[in-house]
């Protein structure tokens, strides 16, 4: 008999707590949009922010309300866009993109203005007289981009960040991280790329880096499709027109087009 009372005490307390909780969960339930939950399942969940919303949850909510385009998730690429299209019952066209480090810098090509020994971060280094390199537009090489990449797609190659094509999903986090704006998003199957970011012209560019675009316009004049143009003293490729014939690569004396 002695054991009965404590058992009853525990059982009654448990019952009260259980009833209270089930009432609370019923009257204070937050309605969850089913489409939103479905879309959230289809998204990759990297929370990279490439879509322009606050993570996958924010994007799923905006999609469910019909306030966002279904092909903004570059991390998930084509498969995710199609899955979202199926849930929302709309047609989706997605073009995969990839990040490109538009700088040919490695230690032997550009000279250093001074030795930097501060905080090992590009953002910090860039604040000090625009960075330790003679070229104030180029990659500093302290790998803020590699640290920021949510997919581990930027690897170090000879002290220079290199994008791994298989891992990069084109989310653009590195593009926003780079203090020099060296990284650009290009179509995944690009055939032509300009590896320079120096917006100055002629002599100072030659002085700063052995492999740099001096805006000589040779490529612009050679291209039959008009796909490459000098803008801000750098050659820029128009990927909708470029067919990858490779003539610009042959005429570039500075070897910055690949």
């Amino acid at each position, binding site marked *: 008999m002695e054991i009965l009372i404590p058992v009853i*005490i*525990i059982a009654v*307390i*448990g019952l009260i*707590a259980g009833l209270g*909780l089930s009432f*609370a*969960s019923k009257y*204070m339930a*937050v309605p969850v949009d089913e489409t939103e939950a479905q879309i959230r399942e289809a998204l990759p969940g990297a929370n990279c922010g490439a879509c322009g919303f606050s993570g996958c949850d924010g994007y799923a909510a905006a999609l469910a309300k019909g306030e966002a385009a279904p092909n903004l998730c570059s991390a998930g690429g084509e498969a995710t866009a199609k899955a979202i299209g199926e849930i929302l019952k709309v047609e989706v066209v997605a073009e995969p993109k990839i990040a490109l480090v538009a700088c040919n810098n490695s230690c032997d090509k550009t000279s250093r203005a001074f030795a930097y020994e501060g905080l090992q971060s590009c953002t910090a280094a860039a604040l000090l007289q625009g960075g330790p390199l003679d070229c104030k537009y180029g990659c500093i090489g302290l790998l803020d981009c590699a640290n920021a990449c949510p997919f581990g797609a930027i690897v170090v190659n000879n002290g220079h960040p290199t994008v791994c094509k298989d891992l990069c999903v084109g989310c653009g986090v590195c593009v926003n991280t780079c203090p020099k704006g060296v990284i650009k998003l290009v179509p995944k199957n690009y055939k032509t790329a300009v590896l320079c970011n120096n917006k100055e012209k002629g002599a100072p560019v030659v002085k700063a880096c052995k492999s740099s675009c001096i805006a000589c316009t040779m490529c612009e004049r050679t291209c039959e499709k008009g796909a490459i143009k000098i803008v801000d003293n750098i050659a820029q490729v128009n990927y909708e027109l470029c067919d990858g014939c490779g003539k610009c690569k042959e005429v570039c004396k500075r070897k910055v087009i690949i």
Partner: protein
Amino acid sequence: MNKIALILLAAILTNNMVLSKFLGICPFLGVSKKTNTALSMSIAVTLVMVISTAVTHPLYTYVLYPKYTYLETIVFILVIAAIVQLLEIVLKKFLPPIYKSLGIYLPLITTNCAVLGITMLNITDELNFVQSLFNALGAGLGFMLAMLLFSGVRERLETADIPEFLKGLPITLVSAAIVALSFLGFAGIGG
């Protein structure tokens, strides 16, 4: 009145839950990376401490005492778990941003020994109902103080140049020990 002020002071500084009694270390290390989350976590813990004390103290005094005091631990855990669940439902409904920022640590308050610790200490110290409430409030505020102090330390650690072998958890534990050491200076004040 004097007694209550003394209890509050002692609970915050002298008998600080985290830095003197070493209870609730899990959230202390887990959620102290950012000041914002540290603050909302400690508010949640303080709330749970006060509400649990308000429930457990009468429960002990009128139901368990004097015959079934050995049920203290299991009953208190039951009550705390239910209250945390309730708090989770309420937060989800009315304060979704806080609910999101707390994440997994909210249900983990259930197993936060600081909460169970304070409810049981109230009984051991033979405090009456009002005194218990203030003791719980003080313990919660002490937890908040520790969290805020330590989140400041950790934000400094983020940018510090730390030797490779100390990076991450080791340096966090070492600095936690030093912060705890500094709280020894309060020993003897208030009681």
